[in-house]
């Protein structure tokens, strides 16, 4: 009977394609939008991810995200270093600077000042250059995406000179950092050098980044720091989530993307539900014939579910392939770095596709179950 069910399904190619495309469109939309959403909100914590050596972040008690910062006094560094469970602690500077590109245009860029002696705070992946050269005067490292934006069409090379707030900066290294929420250009330099670029004096630490000792957890160390210094401290993971949740709660991104995803699901349900219902309705007399001949209701249900399952599987596969191709193709653009299709989004969209198809099958199945086989004797 199942081969007959499949022949019935494939016979009306237009309707079959319509059903498959309905599921595929819905799957594509859900995956594409949720992938972008995950990519966007992940950028909110990119600065934290780029300092993998530190597992505790310390900041002013009023700080709610990575962009609104109140500087700490230099003396706080010593106090944090004295808290039990802290293996080491270093300063981290973060500020926005204006740079002039090669063709004279102004761009906003992120300036990160890392610890002078250890250089902790630099992204681990160096694309070109020697990171120790950062100790030279006016030396900076630049993010790869930033380099491509400033020195368009130029091959990657060292020695280029940029103006940060009208001060000379020499590129001695090119690094691969995580895509940021606000700017794709990031410069890294020593903490002391960063203060010169921004004309600031003492007491300018944006954050203190620390490492918990082997016998302590980051959460315990953070609690100790709060208790002993009165500053705000949390584990790197907690801070990353705080930064992400700030974006979620204070921007229209979730509502905007959520609306598109909801529309994708609704369109999927409406299109697939209606078309599958129409498909069954048009084949109702065939089901009645099969019923009259002696096909049991269980077998008819099996036939309808098989038809729905095939539509769901083919449609979902097509939609997922489309979404994967989108991220694969668009991901090659520098401005689209960091966007990807997480496995759990694909799995969730599979669940949604299954729900759409089960709902459509259940609606259509009622007609099959209640069709009067005696209609076959009516003209």
């Amino acid at each position, binding site marked *: 009977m199942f081969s007959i069910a499949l022949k019935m399904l494939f016979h009306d190619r237009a309707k079959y394609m319509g059903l498959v495309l309905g599921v595929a469109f819905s799957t594509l939309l859900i995956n594409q939008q949720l992938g972008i959403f995950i990519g966007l909100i992940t950028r909110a914590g990119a600065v934290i991810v780029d300092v993998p050596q530190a597992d505790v972040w310390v900041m002013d008690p009023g700080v709610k995200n990575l962009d609104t910062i109140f500087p700490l006094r230099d003396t706080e560094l010593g106090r944090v270093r004295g808290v039990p469970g802290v293996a080491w602690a270093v300063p981290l500077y973060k500020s926005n600077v204006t740079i002039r590109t090669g063709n004279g245009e102004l761009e906003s860029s992120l300036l990160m000042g890392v610890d002078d002696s250890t250089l902790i705070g630099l992204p681990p992946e160096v694309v070109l250059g020697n990171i120790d050269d950062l100790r030279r005067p006016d030396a900076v490292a630049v993010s790869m995406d930033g380099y491509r934006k400033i020195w368009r069409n130029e091959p990657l090379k060292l020695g280029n000179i940029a103006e940060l707030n009208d001060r000379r900066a020499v590129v001695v290294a090119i690094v691969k950092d995580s895509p940021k929420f606000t700017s794709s250009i990031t410069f890294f330099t020593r903490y002391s050098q960063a203060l010169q670029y921004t004309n600031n004096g003492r007491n300018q630490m944006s954050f203190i980044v620390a490492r918990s000792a082997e016998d302590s957890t980051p959460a315990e160390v953070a609690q100790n720091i709060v208790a002993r210094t009165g500053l705000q401290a949390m584990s790197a993971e907690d801070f990353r989530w705080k930064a992400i949740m700030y974006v979620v709660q204070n921007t229209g991104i979730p509502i905007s993307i959520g609306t598109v995803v909801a529309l994708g699901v609704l369109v999927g349900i409406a299109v697939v539900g209606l078309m599958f219902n129409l498909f069954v309705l048009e084949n109702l007399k065939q089901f009645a014939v099969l019923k009259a001949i002696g*096909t049991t209701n269980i077998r008819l249900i099996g036939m309808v579910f098989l038809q729905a399952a095939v539509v769901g599987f083919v449609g979902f596969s097509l939609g997922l392939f489309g979404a994967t191709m989108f991220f694969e193709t668009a991901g090659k653009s520098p401005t689209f770095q960091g966007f990807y299709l997480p496995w759990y989004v694909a799995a969730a969209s599979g669940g949604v596709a299954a729900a759409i198809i089960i709902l459509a099958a259940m609606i259509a199945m009622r007609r099959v179950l209640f069709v009067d086989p005696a209609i*076959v004797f*009516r003209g």
Partner: protein
Amino acid sequence: MPMEFAVECKGVIKDFGTGSVRQRVLHGIDWQVPIGATTFLVGPSGCGKTTLISIIAGLLSATEGYVRILDQEITKMRRSRVVRFRADHLGYIFQQFNLLPSLTAVENAAVSLVVQGVTLATAKRQASVLLDRLGMESNKLKYPNQLSGGQQQRVAIARALVHNPKIVISDEPTASLDAETGHEVMELLGQVASGADRAVIVVTHDNRIFPFADYIATMSDGRIESFRKNSA
């Protein structure tokens, strides 16, 4: 003791609707369909022929009375048992052929066996032999929309007979056919379906095929008015 009747109806009443809109379509039908014969059920439109054969076929339930088919009281069977009984013992030929448009002629003819649980490949082999007997050798792989009315009806006959049913119920089998094809179809039906332990019930308006009947029952206004051996 051998069966005398293929079908036996006793006091069969059928009402449609309830309360003030209730309409009685069959008024206590008493009728015995002989075995080993072709019986025609005739009468004007709306007299209840289709309702009666739907009840005999187990597709409708009677409001009152009983129907025995092949010595089994179908009106007392559970629904699932009726469905199984239909698949095993009954074959149907419909006025509109009701072939599945997505299946080829041989696949359509095989459906009754597939419903019984036979694999499609095996069913197609058996159906193919029957279609050959019905003169459809060169059309077995065609779809219904590629067949003439007469060819479609042959496929429908093959579907009704492929599982070797004891009773074939046929509703206006020649209504959509010209006189010549209609005669051909009735001859084929007579050859293939008739047998000492079988019965064919044909509902028809078509008096051109009356010579093919062994018995003729005439219905009027929900009642069997006459039942006689055909002398034509």
